[in-house]
């Protein structure tokens, strides 16, 4: 009995150690990215300490800053799922921006097609339409890969460019509200359709929706049979074929789910932030979502945390611009540095696996 207890205690003691080891490359990557960013700022004659202080202030320094960060995190969680879900099947899909644009357009077109709908029907319909169009768009990239052997990274990005062209064509053409002169937009949603803020917060319901989607995705991948099958496909596709898993259906399904998430992100941007589909939708959430997914190591729960952090980086841009006169691309530079560092520090992971093994064998010897 006491033996068993000791073993349990050892396992518990080991767990934080191995968790810390797993998080170590990510932490090191962020630290080295911040160091490089500081050097970059020094080269621009800007005090890095002041810039980092302002970034923290602009991201999480006040309730207004928090609201801004979380508002940006809402679409990021969903576009990150567009990368993370197909990644579980071994695909690198980077077409989230196009799916987001088309999802937003589909949501905006609901107001054009059926302006007299009741609120209770309109908002779910907008989300559903966004999910359907976004999902089909990315599922097409999955189909091209499974059925035609077209590389999904290039295919999804090309589809994304095509989607954005279609978006611009329709917003400036058939679906344009004639009253929108300077900034082509679709017909504005009726005031009552707008998705409001969550009680007690200044953040719209899209954030809760995104977080719930991440948790659901995690539960699906961790506990469901199709989720397990998807992980098998991602681990070794030959094994998956050998045991008779429907590989094509699983891969395309994962792409559809990811695209649907990105489409919903677009729908919420229209229904909660913009009020109509216009070019402001194309502000790079799809690309930043790639960073979020990789930083989270394609784990949907970690996506929530990383989306808030990356949202914070985006939110701090305007403060850097106003106080230090830095171009708004400063946040893009930091994001790029973090991304490149994350991937480069991945090299450490192999060494870490060795240490982890040694750690656990140490524990085993004690028992």
């Amino acid at each position, binding site marked *: 009995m006491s033996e068993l207890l000791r073993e349990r205690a050892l396992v518990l003691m080991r767990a934080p150690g191995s968790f810390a080891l797993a998080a170590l490359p990510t932490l090191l990557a962020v630290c080295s990215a911040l160091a490089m960013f500081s050097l970059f700022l020094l080269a621009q004659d800007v005090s890095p300490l002041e810039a980092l202080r302002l970034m923290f202030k602009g991201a999480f320094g006040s309730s207004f800053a928090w609201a801004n960060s979380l508002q940006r995190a809402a679409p990021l969680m969903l576009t990150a799922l567009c990368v993370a879900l197909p990644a579980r099947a071994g695909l*690198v899909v*980077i077409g989230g921006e196009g799916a987001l644009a088309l999802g937003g357009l589909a949501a905006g077109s609901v107001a054009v097609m059926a302006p007299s709908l009741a609120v209770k029907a309109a908002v779910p319909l907008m989300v559903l339409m966004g999910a359907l169009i976004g999902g089909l768009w990315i599922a097409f990239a999955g189909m*091209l890969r*499974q*059925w*035609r*052997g*077209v*590389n999904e*990274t*290039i*295919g999804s*990005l*090309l*589809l994304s*460019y*095509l989607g954005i*062209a*279609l978006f*611009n*064509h329709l917003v*400036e*053409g058939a679906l344009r509200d004639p009253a929108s002169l300077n900034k082509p937009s679709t017909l504005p949603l009726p005031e009552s359709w707008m998705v409001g803020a969550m009680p007690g917060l200044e953040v719209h319901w899209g954030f809760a929706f995104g977080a719930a989607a991440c948790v659901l995705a995690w539960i699906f991948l961790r506990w469901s049979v199709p989720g397990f099958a998807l992980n098998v496909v991602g681990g070794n596709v030959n094994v998956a074929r050998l045991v008779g898993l429907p590989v094509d259906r699983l891969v395309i399904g994962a792409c559809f789910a990811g695209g649907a998430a990105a489409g919903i992100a677009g729908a919420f941007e229209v229904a909660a932030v913009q009020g109509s589909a216009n070019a402001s939708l194309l502000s790079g959430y799809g*690309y930043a979502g*790639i*960073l979020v997914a*990789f930083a989270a190591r394609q784990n949907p729960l970690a996506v929530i945390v990383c989306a808030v952090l990356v949202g914070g980086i985006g939110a701090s841009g305007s403060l850097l611009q106003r106080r230090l006169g*830095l*171009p708004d*691309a*400063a946040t*893009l*530079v*930091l*994001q*790029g*540095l973090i*991304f*490149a560092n*994350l*991937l*480069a520090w*991945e*090299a450490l*992971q*192999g060494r870490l696996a060795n240490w982890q093994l040694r750690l656990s064998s140490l524990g085993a010897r004690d028992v």
Partner: protein
Amino acid sequence: MSEAVVSTLAIGMIGGAIRVGTPYLFVSLGECITEKGGRVNLGLEGILVMGAMSGYALSYLSGSPWIGLLCAAAMGLCMGLLHGLICSLPRVNDIAFGIGLMLLGTGLAFFLGKGFIQPQAPQLPALSLGSFIADPRWRSALSINALFPIGVLLSLLLHWGLRSTRPGLALRLVGDHEGTARALGYPVATVRIIATAVGGAFAGVGGAYLSLCYPGSWSEGLSSGQGIMAVALVIFARWRPLGCLAAAMLFGAAGALGPALQSIGISSGYHLFNAAPYALTLAIMIASCRPRQTLGGTPGELSLTR
């Protein structure tokens, strides 16, 4: 449609094939070298944008477009070197790091290039091959930039180099079968790093073409994904430099469709016409790829087509 309109359109497309196709040519030659060594560099898009920015900036600061061009090539070389070095570390995925480099390069270029959006930098000179023709449409179509003949020469040189020189054969061997190359004593990682760096320099030149020739100014929307399309273009060209030349001209013509249609007065739906290269790329990839089967000419170590 009357005959004059059709001929204007055709001449516009021919001129456009060269004008719009030249950056595709340089970037795809760069990607071809990189992929021959067995690596994929999706970061060429970022390198292209960085090359466009640094070339324009240096041309403006120094007053000589050729110094700008050199700087763009050097910038591409450095970024390619970075990709080559990092991807030589264990467990680093070249496709993923390429995406990282794409985001980093675009961010850096937007940041550093903020001050160069307004001023006009000296441009690379154009050669007017059609000065003896009376028709002004032909004359403007045949006013060809100096970089195009250089690109054609380079693709011929690469065609010969990859086929019949020792370094070319070493590069192909490293890309086709790592084990054999290692057994023969070739430094696999070094060869790949050099190939990626040289490929980056080509992409930098392609970027400088965008800012120093056509469209001929620096702005944040300058690149429309040429770096990514070049990857698809190399697949279509089956990793042959002369194939890259032909494919780049085809893509250039597709890219010139929008402006050519506008010149004859068709301007509705120009977003769709401007997206023609993407649709063409996708269509070509659908037509030329096969599931679970590698194409002829594919470097064996390439992760892209597995």
